[in-house]
């Protein structure tokens, strides 16, 4: 917990330093080449761009702790970064969680079928399916899904996203294709991993022992095999967090989901470093929180670590 917090602070500092090391003047980047020296000077003073880096970081971090991530310099209205992120974060979290649930559902089914039908046609199909899906770029898959399910069948909207706050059903409907595009390659990775773990668990002494007791196949698969394969599986999900959220950044652009990823990419185009920095730290926070959660779940699942 303390380690995670320290990691977040160091991570924020790294992002801060990285973005402040960018050559060129943030003020000129924001105001354009034609801005007069006076305006630039005023801008610099207003945004404390003349202070030493350490002082800038300190005041930024202090403000950040109170939820103030500074103002956006690119958007004319001068939106606060915090407001931009607060408005977009639920969408990102929704799509991310949606994708995760789909990936878990697909991989649990695929991995279990492949392992319990080891060496048979179902295994061959699931295993080849997995390696093909791992090879698909997620954003491209997004367009292919649009081509088939939106433009072809007309089942889902091709573009745009209903905020979960406005309509939960709408969010599930409009978020399905983006979530699926992220989920499919991830499901490939997870089901391969699950299959290997299950096959390994099948050979464990306690499974043979359970068979010798006369328990049924389904009972043994559920309580002995799957239950014990769960810990490495959940750990693997934690390791995928950076890829999943990375995928979210690009997929949000493909489907026009107004999430943190979209905000970040827009800010990057506008060279609005304050917003980029805020978004990066929020993404870091999500991954760190996910890992904390994964760690807690693993601890609960493994009696050797709880008791």
């Amino acid at each position, binding site marked *: 917990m303390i*380690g995670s917090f320290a*990691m977040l602070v*160091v*991570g924020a500092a*790294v*992002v801060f330093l*990285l*973005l402040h*090391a*960018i050559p060129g003047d943030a003020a000129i980047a924001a105001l354009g080449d034609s801005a007069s020296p006076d305006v630039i000077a005023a801008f610099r003073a207003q945004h404390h761009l003349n202070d030493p880096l350490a002082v800038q970081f300190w005041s930024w971090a202090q403000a950040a702790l109170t939820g103030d991530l500074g103002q956006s310099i690119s958007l004319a209205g001068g939106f606060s970064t915090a407001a931009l992120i607060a408005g977009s974060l639920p969408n990102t979290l929704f799509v991310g969680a949606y994708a995760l649930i789909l990936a878990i559902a697909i991989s649990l089914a695929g991995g279990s079928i492949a392992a319990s039908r080891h060496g048979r046609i179902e295994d061959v199909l699931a295993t080849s399916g997995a*390696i*093909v899906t*791992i*090879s*698909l*770029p*997620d*954003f*491209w*898959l997004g*367009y*292919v899904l*649009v*081509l088939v399910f939106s*433009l072809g069948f007309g089942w889902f909207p091709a573009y745009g996203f209903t905020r979960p706050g406005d309509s939960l059903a709408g969010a599930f409907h409009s978020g399905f294709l983006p979530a699926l595009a992220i989920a499919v390659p991830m499901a490939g990775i997870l089901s391969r991993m699950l299959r290997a773990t299950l096959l390994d668990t099948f050979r464990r002494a306690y499974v043979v022992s359970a068979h010798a007791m006369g328990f049924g196949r389904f009972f043994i698969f559920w309580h002995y095999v799957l239950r014990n394969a769960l810990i490495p599986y959940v750990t693997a999900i934690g390791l995928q*967090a*950076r*890829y*999943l*959220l*990375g*995928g*979210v*950044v*690009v997929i949000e*652009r*493909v489907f026009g989901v107004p999430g943190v*990823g979209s905000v*970040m*990419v827009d800010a*990057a*185009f506008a*060279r609005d*470093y304050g917003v*980029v920095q805020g*978004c*990066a730290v929020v*993404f*870091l926070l999500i*991954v*760190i929180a996910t*890992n904390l959660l994964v760690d807690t779940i693993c601890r609960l699942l493994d009696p050797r670590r709880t008791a």
Partner: protein
Amino acid sequence: MTPGRATGGMWYTFLTNRVAQAGGTIIVSTLMAILLVRLLSPYGPNEKDYMSILHMPSLAHPFGTDSFGQDVLTRVVYGAQVSLIISFGGLILGGLVGSVIGMASGFWGGVLDAITMRFIDLLYSFPTYVLALCLMLLLGYGSRSVSLAIALVYVPNFARLARSMTAATRTENYVTAARLMGQSPTRILLREILPNIAAPLLVQFSAGLGFGIILEAGLSFVGLGVQPPTPSLGVMMADGKDYFQKAPWVLTLTGVSVAWIILGLNLLGDGLRDALDPQLRRRLS
């Protein structure tokens, strides 16, 4: 056990592994196709023909033409080369830096290990594209920056792998023997440990090569990576998405080509891992 002989057995298993053969076939046939198209294609990668804009796939243009009337197949072939080089460069750099950090960390342990690995964990906690995007802002857009971004994304993967493998190898008899004979740590790392951990690093490399292509494509796709007119696969897909509804073949076929190459790389990596697996297990047990 002499490391060299064990590796020889591994290469034999690798070459006779069906998965590896499938991957090899894909990669070799793709390389041959690239060569053939470069030699035989009547079009250049940036050769515009405004008389044949957005043509459907045909005999003259097997993958169709794009909005400038450029031949998509020719561009895919050139783009694949660009993307592969970018990804390859990134992985070489990331692999080198990550492996050095990981080996040093695993070999010496202690405070150095604790601090470096926390930093590596931090790096691993940034979503891939977020890390890449920040670096692109720092370095400016373009092929070289994309390579560096791929390297940065892959440093923690290699560092973690190299560290755990080195830590496991450190206590092996032949390493202890080398130490007792008074060999320098650098020499031990290079002569005794590296040959024994090279294979899993290679597996990571081949898997990373595929993902590097996806990362390049994704960055260029949102416009923050390789910049046109350089025909990287991502740039072409970004272009194709603009008229996706009118001419879906540009984006679709470019993507199929990307997936095809990555599939080949993944199969190769799988074959390599299969060949390595029994040995890995023997060493870890």
